[in-house]
């Protein structure tokens, strides 16, 4: 393995649970405001996952007070912690962009019944 690849792979975090598009995740985001540092909890469904290795990112979407909120994070970002899978979704697409146009009952993702969330 060459040095560039090894530097790239060193940063990949193996402890992150496997999740895929359609899953609902909950995690904490480190937010730095001036000198202070605090954690924000974010819960939403994964609508996109792309890239590989250190460059891999995912897009997570939630609807907060009738406004859709989407954020993109690197999968291996050290700013994310306590990633838990709330539910696994049954989806037929790799990118769930269609959710952006839907709201209310239409915007639900069917959950996979073979998944039991960890307590």
């Amino acid at each position: 393995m060459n040095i560039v690849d090894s530097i790239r792979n060193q940063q990949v975090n193996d402890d992150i649970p496997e999740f895929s598009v359609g899953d609902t995740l909950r995690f904490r985001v480190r937010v730095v405001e001036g000198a202070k540092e605090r954690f924000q909890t974010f819960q939403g469904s994964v609508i996109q996952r792309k890239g590989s290795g250190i460059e891999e990112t995912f897009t997570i979407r939630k609807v907060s007070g009738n406004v859709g909120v989407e954020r993109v994070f690197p999968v291996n970002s050290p700013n994310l912690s306590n990633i838990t899978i709330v539910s696994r979704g049954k989806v037929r697409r790799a990118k769930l962009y269609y959710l952006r146009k839907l709201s209310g009952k239409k915007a639900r993702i069917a959950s996979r019944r073979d998944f039991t969330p960890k307590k």
Partner: protein
Amino acid sequence: MALRLLGTKLGMTQIFEESGEMTPVTIIELAPNIVIQKKTVETDKYSALQLGYESKSAKNTSKPEIGHTKKAGQGPLRFLRESRVDGAIVDNYNLGDEIKVDFFTTGETVDVTGVTKGRGFAGVIKRHGMHGTASLTHGAHEVMRHAGSIGASATPARVFRGKRMAGRYGNDRQTTQNLRVVDLRVEENILIVKGAVSGRTGGLVMVQKSIKAKR
């Protein structure tokens, strides 16, 4: 003038910094540079250090060249480059001394010189960033990737020198200033700087402390 070390561009990737920010970085291999020749005002009318980098086989090296590096106790080297430095700095080094990555420190800024990728005979769109017929002005029409107008008519009745046109592009020496040293690994001879550096992967680069560094 600052001492300019020789290295090899290994490629680019991304790195998470302590703040959690993702930073684009270039990885440069700086194997120990060897002091091959010391030039002084007395002998050469200017002072400089000649550094050598990367060994090569003696089979393809001329005897004068072998003799030159032998004075510093070295086998033949592929790259020999001179850095103009003050006489006081020249006196600090002896022939055969190795200068390693720890010449730099994490957090300081460096200037990196490389030779840009040669693109051959390139048109104005690639070479000068013109817009062709995508532009509604500058006289470009009919031919999509052409430049359009190259000047007025009877006055001045010529095309000004330096008018941007198609031609050889790339293969130029180029320096990128003020790249921050994100990390360095002395055992592996690796220097990691933020941002892009001219040249192909595997190409020769020269690294020096920033001449415009903020103090």
